[in-house]
């Protein structure tokens, strides 16, 4: 009745509706380091280079070395690995290769986000990993090989363990 004490919360309010499998599939695009979420399909460095030249080079430069503040606000895509130069690029700064796939698929090319098919994304990922000298130019990248790529910067990553208090760290 409307007179009942209603200040206690019910287990469920009953607002909202069950999400269908299809609704979930449409939006569930994330990729994890262990490969969870990677779609079927595959790509090569050569295919990736071809797509790159057409769809990416205008902003990131033919060599992927375009720097922030000039043509665009993004770090260079290509650099030598840890041993080499300093910019925070895929080659010397990214800890997981899966992130390259995830990021390109969700938001590149910047002016046409979400327009690439999965094979194109696998290929572009292969191309950028190769250009960064992380994989050899003839590696095929797919749901099995991508999570297996070891990124040079991974070993440098340390989780923040600060919890407040006096220490400056």
């Amino acid at each position, binding site marked *: 009745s409307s007179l009942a004490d209603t200040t206690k919360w019910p287990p469920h309010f009953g607002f909202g509706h069950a999400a269908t499998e299809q609704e979930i599939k449409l*939006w569930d695009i*994330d990729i994890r380091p262990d490969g969870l979420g990677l779609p079927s399909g595959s790509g090569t460095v050569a295919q990736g280079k071809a797509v790159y030249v057409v769809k990416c080079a205008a902003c990131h430069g033919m060599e992927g070395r375009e720097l922030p503040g000039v043509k665009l606000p993004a770090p260079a895509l290509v650099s030598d690995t840890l041993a080499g130069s300093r910019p925070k690029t895929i080659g010397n700064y990214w800890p997981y290769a899966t992130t390259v796939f995830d990021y390109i698929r*969700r938001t590149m090319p910047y002016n046409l986000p*979400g327009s690439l098919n999965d094979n194109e994304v696998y290929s572009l990922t292969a191309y950028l990993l190769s250009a960064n000298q992380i994989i050899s130019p003839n590696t095929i990248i797919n749901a099995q090989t991508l999570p297996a790529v070891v990124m040079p910067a991974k070993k440098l990553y340390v*989780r*923040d363990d600060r919890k*407040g208090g*006096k220490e400056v760290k």
Partner: protein
Amino acid sequence: LATAILPVSSAFAKYVQVGAPIDDPTKKLGPGPGKLGKRSPFEQPLKKPSDISSRTPLQDLYSTITPADLHFERHHAGVPTIDPAKYELLIHGMVDKPMKFTLHDLKRFPSVTRTCFLECAGNFRSGSEQLTPQDILGLTSQSEWTGIMLSTLLREVGVQPKASWFLAEGGDAAVMTRSIPVSKAWDDAMIVYAQNGEAIRPEQGYPARLLLPGWEGNMNIKWLRRLEFADEPWFTREETSKYTYPVKDRIRYFSFEMDARSIITYPVFPQKVERGWIEIRGIAWSGRGKVLKVEVSTDAGKSWNTANLQEPVLSKAHTYFRYLWYWNGDATEIASRVIDETGYTQPTLKQLAEARGTAIGGYHMNPITAWQIRPDGSVLFYPEKV
């Protein structure tokens, strides 16, 4: 019972002459009541936009509410236009019942209001004496947010015990994603649909955003469209390529809390001061709780004095401080430092560089900010070098 005193409309308006300012405003009728107020033509506070962000004019503001149209912006693919009638939030992954919620659904749940700051983790600039607070750290603002506790939705979908992380994803063209520990969801995370009393603004995530009080601005996903629960974080681009930073020979990641910080917003460049009493004013905050104390130095850091804090002092909120000072006309430097309730004291740039190495500079920089007062009354930023 007499009817109310105010007639709705009449033919009266045609008698009224309105117009431009004249020397004596008591001699000239002004424009009548309207549907929307506007700023005085003599006041034009503006954000300072770059390609990717826009900074709040801290030096133009009084106290701690940031007017919604001056709230800082940082987005990665522009501001989407989202039809609230089509908006849905999906929650899935390690939950008993994957669900979708419309905006109307969200608004029906028990609601809550909280005033707290947001700050971009990259909020730091230096390098010139001619910088204002807006230039130096205009990527922080504060609003009164209203929405629902995220925990209310977790109950609704039944989050499974082994879920330790969730991914929050935006509905913008960056489809922005961040991994967040589930503990934050049970603690104080909110999904908010209102800001400063009205619907949230497009630049701040209309129609609904995630609010993680005290945590990196970027994690407070705007235009929120999806939450996925899992037992691992995702290491998305924004938590690896971005929002990580060199600490000596390592790269530090998952710095969620924004460290305690303060800045004097009056007097600052390019203002001028006059000899005599000056109320030094500014804001202080901490992502880890309440501001315990703010100290102000007027002798270039040699001694520190306790400032007054404007009540109510709220947790994870910009807190206004004031310190009364008599300036005798000599050259000096003024600065502020905050101590938060965990006992943390805002460090100097030198302390930060000692702790982290000299390659610092990208994210989570919260050094004490000082201002030079010149004998002619001019005020300049004091850009430190490591």
